[in-house]
């Protein structure tokens, strides 16, 4: 094999495929580009050449048990969900299923980030077991991204690129949209998620929060009386 990936698109794909198959973590375009920067020809590979090679590779793998995916952290090969019945029989231990407490905490961090542990407790109405935070940190899904400037300087948590990649997502905006619960969520409450706020702003919300409360108030009078 005498390869000239800088010049030959087929050779480029051979090298890209090998690199992506061997990589432990997703590879970014910059990672992939760096592979070719020191070639004897001293030519780099242009971004669009790389991109189209990746697109062709993805197309070539279509219909097989493994697919080339673009996720938050870059490009990677992963098995298709259809393979799981067979692949899971090779595994000795069952993958973890997260408890509701973990999932709710994760959701709050994902949709409301950055949040402190106190914010999470306010929303969930219960204290947050430190093991929950630890579980999510150890999985590499959340991380402390700063501190809120209040007494105690509590850590602010946010989700990582690894979290998105593990769920096969590229950006936070690809998270499942929040349920609107009768359009009760007012824009100011979602201030931390700009995408969502925009979506809500576009939405034709007939019932304002004030109107809702008024309804509740009127109803309560009858209840009490």
């Amino acid at each position, binding site marked *: 094999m005498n390869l000239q990936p800088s010049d030959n698109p087929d050779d480029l794909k051979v090298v890209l495929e090998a690199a992506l*198959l061997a990589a432990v973590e997703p590879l970014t375009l910059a990672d992939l580009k760096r592979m070719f920067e020191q070639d004897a020809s001293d030519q780099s590979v242009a971004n669009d050449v790389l991109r189209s090679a990746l697109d062709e590779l993805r197309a070539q793998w279509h219909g097989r048990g493994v697919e080339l995916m673009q996720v938050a952290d870059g490009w990677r090969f992963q098995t298709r969900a259809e393979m799981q019945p067979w*692949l899971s029989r090779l595994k000795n231990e069952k993958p973890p*299923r997260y408890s509701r407490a973990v999932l*709710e905490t994760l959701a709050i961090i994902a949709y409301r980030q950055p949040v402190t542990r106190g914010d999470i407790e306010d929303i969930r109405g219960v204290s947050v077991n430190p093991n929950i935070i630890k579980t999510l940190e150890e999985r590499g899904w959340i991380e402390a991204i700063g501190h809120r400037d209040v007494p105690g300087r509590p850590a602010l948590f946010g989700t990582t690129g690894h979290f998105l990649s593990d769920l096969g997502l590229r950006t936070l905006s690809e998270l499942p949209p929040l349920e609107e619960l009768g359009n*009760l969520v007012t824009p100011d409450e979602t201030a931390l998620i700009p995408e969502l706020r925009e979506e809500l702003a576009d939405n034709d919300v007939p019932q304002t929060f004030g109107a809702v409360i008024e309804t*509740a108030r009127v109803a309560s009078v009858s*209840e009490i009386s």
Partner: protein
Amino acid sequence: MNEAELLDPPPLETPPAPVIKVRGEPLTELPQDLYIPPDALEVFLDAFEGPLDLLLYLIRRQNLDVLDIPMAALTKQYMAYVEAARATRLELAAEYLLMAAMLIDIKSRMLLPRREQAEEASEGEDPRAELVRRLLEYEQMKLAGQHLDALPQAGRDFDTVSVFLPAAAKRLPSLHPEELAAAWLAILSRAKNRTHHRIGRQELSIREHMSRILKRLVPGEFMEFKDLFPESSTVHELVVTFLAVLELTKETLLDVTQAEPFAPIYVKLHESATE
């Protein structure tokens, strides 16, 4: 932590309910009324993620509009749970008690007569507004958690590919041509630096080359100077050959001539040497 999701509100698909056993008999449905068998209480409370979750359940169970919370009945039911929780799980009861206090607070404030003029201005200050907001926000996050769980997850629903990378194939050093030139020049400069502390050990070799040159020259014929130096010569050989030429000249065994500067140099055996 408990994974029970049997208390999810109707719009969502309910996963298989965990088995709650009461006196050995599985309890597949939650009681329709407020009575909970004492043995099941702990499991039951574990099924909720907290007071908000319980309150949400109570509201949903009774098909009540979240916005139309019947405070009196709800608070009564709630207190029953709290009493039960206190009996077995005191540490768990704290959060429920706090919620109960909040419900009672709301109820008592609503019972107080309101002044007409204040009512319009404080429309948004309905005592239940905060509770409603919290309930809805909690429910939203609870559902969001379920949606996240439904996404394909690395390691659970798919695996990432990372084929074996043979360790034997180590990374080879790269080399730029200029490094070679630099290496060569380093050799030369080192040779220069060795000037003062190297022992000359090639005297015999110079003698040998002197005789070799003499043998190559045909008496009376000129030979071009550079032809004395074979192309494959090493620096060492060049040096020794050159020194041999100098020595031969000094001993007047060799004549070296040049017609003009930069013209070819010729060597010839000295007349006397041929005699």
